[in-house]
């Protein structure tokens, strides 16, 4: 380890971190919009390990959203949409414009969706929103996720898996498999 970086506290280059965000040593969060959609009230809401690079990442955590990210992760302009729980391991790489979401944000049933549209509207003041499906997303160590890829709710991406650029991941990815396509299919081993 070089001594230049050792011991430097993690920070958000563009501002002061929200009080419920913990960032490990030598981790950098870069970008004006990192916390533009950050509304989590959890304590803590977001925990990032050490030696991470979060360049242009959007931490869109809703009020009950909680996310944990390990050490030595490198995300470029990823969008993390979190209504419940995101767990990301160590040495995870997420490419440009990739999206990780632990919810579909609206209910499936047509009547419930009408109720949701009203609750979300400027006329919906205080009206409760219908239940939406939220399922934690787990991304294990050494996963690589390519640019423009999407990982949806309830998915576990296994250790060392390789999610190809543009893949739409709707089901679990076994460890050390390469997946591709919409919906993502296993196309080989890593």
């Amino acid at each position, binding site marked *: 380890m070089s001594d230049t970086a050792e011991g430097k506290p993690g920070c958000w280059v563009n501002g002061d971190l929200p009080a419920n965000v913990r960032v490990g040593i030598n981790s950098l969060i870069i970008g004006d919009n990192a916390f533009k959609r950050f509304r989590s009230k959890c304590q803590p809401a977001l925990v990032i390990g050490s030696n991470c*690079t979060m360049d242009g990442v959007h931490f869109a955590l809703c009020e009950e959203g909680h996310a944990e990210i390990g050490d*030595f992760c490198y995300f470029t302009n990823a969008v993390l949409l979190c209504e419940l729980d995101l767990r990301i391991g160590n040495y995870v790489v997420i490419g440009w414009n990739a999206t990780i979401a632990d919810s579909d944000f609206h209910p499936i049933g047509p009547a419930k969706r009408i109720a949701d549209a009203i609750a979300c509207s400027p006329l919906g003041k205080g009206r409760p929103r219908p239940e939406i499906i939220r399922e934690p997303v787990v991304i294990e160590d050494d996963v690589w996720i390519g640019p423009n890829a999407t990982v949806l709710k309830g998915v576990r991406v296994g250790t060392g898996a390789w999610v190809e*650029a543009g893949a739409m991941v709707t089901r679990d990815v076994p460890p050390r498999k390469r997946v591709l396509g919409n919906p993502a299919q296993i196309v080989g081993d890593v």
Partner: protein
Amino acid sequence: MAQRRLSWDWYPGTIPDNVVMDETAYVETTFSFHLYRSQESVGVRIGRGASTYLGTMFDAGPRARISLGDYALVHGARIICDAEVDIGPYALISWNVVLMDTYRLPLDAPLRRRELERVALRSPRSFAAPVPARPVRIGANVWIGFDSCILPGVTVGEGAIVGARAVVTDDVPPYTIVAGNPARVIRRLNMEEMSHEA
């Protein structure tokens, strides 16, 4: 060489010295060179009447050579290049398109870990692992729809169309339409429509 700025630019950057631009070419913003690191004698060549708009990023490594042919229109593509990305004349490339000739990181997890440990100590935090790059070639007169990805080593043949959100993993034959993820040929284009008034 005098620093080249763009009078209409919102970003306080310059056009790097090893970017060769025809005087009729248009670059909307020098922010497109924010990640540019090419040390080649010509890192980017932009042809006559070619243009790049907001969102286009020349994410170019030290050995990168990127070429935009005459009248090529790049409307916000991410060009991830460590060797060669060649865009032919009259190509039309939409927003959020990814053209990548490299994965930037080793496929092997232990080697990838080592590079992630090193990059955390660099400033700026750019990858520098020796990962093989395979040139991407976009032929003349190709049209690429939004959000598509062109993976390393792919050649898109002359006159082809890549549908929106396609992920192109293999070469695209000339004058075909490909779509889907992974992309498949869905139609062949009628060559009789080729005559145009220049």
